[in-house]
């Protein structure tokens, strides 16, 4: 997963309809994205039915 640049963060926010953010909000979001928005490559992404826990928890129908 690609960590966005500051310009990309601003563009994504604008595309989502978020305008008027303070520069320090954009800086925080850029840093947070770089730090946290990564699904680890070493853990396989599977094709098992998702979410698999639902049958375990059962619905109440």
């Amino acid at each position, binding site marked *: *997963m690609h960590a*966005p640049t500051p310009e990309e*963060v601003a563009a*994504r*926010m604008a595309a*989502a*309809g*978020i305008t*008027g*953010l303070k520069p320090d*909000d954009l800086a*925080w*979001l850029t840093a*947070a*994205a770089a730090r*946290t*928005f*990564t*699904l*680890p490559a*070493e*853990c*396989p*992404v*599977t*094709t*098992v*039915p*998702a*979410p*698999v*826990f639902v049958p*375990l*928890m*059962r*619905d*109440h129908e």
Partner: protein
Amino acid sequence: MSEPGYWSIAECARRLRAREISSEELTRALLARIERLDGALNSFLLVTPERALAAARSADAEIARGDYRGGLHGVPYAAKDIIDVAGLPTTCHSAIRRDHVAESDAEIITRLNDAGAVLIGKTALHEFATGGPSLDLPWPPARNPWNREVHPGGSSSGSGAALAAGLVPMTLGTDTGGSIRHPATACGVVGIKPTYNAVSLEGVFPLSFSLDHAGPLTRDVTDNAIALAALLRPQDARRIGCAVDCDAPDAPFPNIGDGLAGLTVGVFEDFYRSEADPEIAAATDAAVRRIAELGAVVKPLRVSPLATYNSCGRLLLQAESWAVHADWLRTRHGEYGERGRRRLLAGALLSAGDYVKAQQLRAHLAREIHAAMRDCDFAITASSLVFPARIDDAAAIERTYDRAARMPFNLNGAPALSLPAGFSKTGLPIGVQIVGHPWGEAMVYRGALALEAALGFAGRHPPQFP
């Protein structure tokens, strides 16, 4: 009358049923304690004395005429202010919801009304259960009774603090990535995140619908079992093996006192051995040794790194919470606190593909835990990996936010309970988690009750709140 602040639910129930004290007297005593002490803690956003006293008088009348409903009848409690109570605001600790008034009770409030419990007020939280602690909201953040300068954990901050200070014997919280277990750990009380969907979320403002759970916090394990029993739907109570009996309200789970001899207990040791503060790791290892001394077979469990679980959960939480808040963030983002605004905005950076991949990874991780625990009756691991930071140190709060081993059990939906397991050299509580199989709450309580008795940390109170 002795000071009832630290009476357990079980003790309140015994005294109420024996009519040694009335619910009105008990409620008045706790209201007075809140009035006297909560100015230093901010654990309550709203106290509702008239409503509470009316409910207490009603409970007294029913008990007097022999219509005893069970272990919560006439017992005061408080609810996290993200849970609807008809006629009261559900602010979610946010200016966004300052003027909201709930039209009906959440299902769990209805269940507690049916049990005869007495709502005494609504407790502080992180803004919308994610953005806290924050000093820029209409109400101040709750403080930790063990040290007012440090974070009480969150997001159910007030629910943990009010219990620890003896303001009420039971609170309700919600837990999306640890928000019941974190304040339970930080405040030295007991909190359970039950099996996903075992406790209704109807009438609870959502944060992340596939990770959200509701559950009770109490000061000991027995009380927690009593509280959970009242919250379960009848069909789920049967599935869990919970048998509420008005003649034995202290024992809603028949076999939780059977001890640990002959059980097999897994240890998620990689979740804490290398990453936890040394005092926390040592306390967790000591708890594992006590479990072995009580006759259980202890075996290590190997699963993916904790960081994988936390990354997956964080991504799901941010995507799902964005879906809840997008409209408000487009038009009113300036009304959120800084921390809440930023955390919720982060979801806008995620794509649909990111979310789907995270759900697929979540399925893999959930299966992994279930497979690892297949031969175990329950498992144990640390709760927080670090001690709470100073509440006014934003950078330290950021660094410590995800240093915990709680998210794995939001991802797999299995029950997880935090109970006190020691104290740091500086006097801050340490907690460990007991983790079960889905619908395995009875075994979680059995493990927690035995460990609580062996460790002996239940019943300690913050020195500044005698």
